[in-house]
């Protein structure tokens, strides 16, 4: 990756394309799971890549590049959330992309699909720090140590945030189930 970064700084188009191909899907999904709106996630992804491009010269080659990219993404998502906090209460409820991906096949899947939908809505009610920790660990499958590096916090704090977030989500899910 160090070579790719160097070539990007030299202005080689192929290197930049490789970098986009490697991280775009991951960053877009992280942004979408975080903000819950497809178009906004696309804008956020573009802004994050602009930040990556302008900050490449500051990258310290001794550090893990993936963690550096994800930290930039995380910082941008939280900054963007804080700037427009008032508008963030609603996530895409009937988003066509989400619906297409969550449409169940057999009837047995119907309940699980509804629960996934409730969980998707519940993610929006978590604080941004807890939400990001859960997205990185539980959805993107990173280890506690990786999440701690990306979020620049101790592993213990990551664990407690995830614990709190999951308990909150479990309660939200139970409320949904108990509602008529």
């Amino acid at each position, binding site marked *: 990756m160090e070579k790719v970064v160097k070539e990007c700084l030299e202005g080689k188009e192929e290197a930049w394309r490789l970098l986009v191909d490697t991280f*775009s899907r991951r960053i877009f999904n992280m942004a979408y799971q975080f903000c819950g709106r497809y178009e906004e996630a*696309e804008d956020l992804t573009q802004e994050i890549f602009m930040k990556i491009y302008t900050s490449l010269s500051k990258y310290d080659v001794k550090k893990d590049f993936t963690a550096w990219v994800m930290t930039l993404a995380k910082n941008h998502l939280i900054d963007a959330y804080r700037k427009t906090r008032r508008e963030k209460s609603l996530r895409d409820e009937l988003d066509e992309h989400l619906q297409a991906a969550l449409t169940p096949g057999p009837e047995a899947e119907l309940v699980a699909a509804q629960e996934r939908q409730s*969980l998707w809505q519940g993610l929006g009610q978590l604080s941004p720090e807890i939400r990001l920790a859960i997205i990185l660990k539980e959805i993107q499958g990173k280890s506690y140590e990786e999440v701690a590096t990306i979020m620049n916090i101790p592993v213990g704090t990551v664990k407690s945030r995830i614990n709190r977030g999951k308990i909150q989500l*479990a309660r939200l*899910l139970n409320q949904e189930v108990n509602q008529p």
Partner: protein
Amino acid sequence: MKCARLQKLLLPYLENELSPKKKKLVEAHLRTCRNCSRELESLKKVSLLLASLPEFEIRPALQARLYSLPAQFEIERRPRWHLLDFFLKPSAQPIIATVCIFLIFISFFFYHPDGRYLSQSFKEKVSLFFGRIEKTVSRVEGLPGYMPLVRKNIIDSLKHIVQTRAEMPEKI
């Protein structure tokens, strides 16, 4: 063990990170507390549901935008020389020259090591200038009293000239 304490241990219990002693305590509590065992089931479900959330492919349009980011930056970074055309116009050159001279004087005044003495000298010159103006004004103000004397003098001179002219032909 109280329910509030157990809730902190539920996730480590699920991830098998507890010591055997704590694990036994948690299991003993779960056997007796229906709420906590229900919460454990919910946590398991949440973990499964989170892991089953779909991953999306990005749209080709977004990918194309991301690919073209360096080119966009190059356009933005390109120097905008056309903005300097105004300064290259012949009509603007006298203005620029005047501004430059003015700035040079200003710089002498502000940045010269002896700026303090320059400032003092400038103040002296200004006070001298105003002193001269005051003197001139006071002289002009004194003129009305002086004018009758001047007039009388001129009239006397003219009379004298006329008299001498009248005497001159007789002499010839």
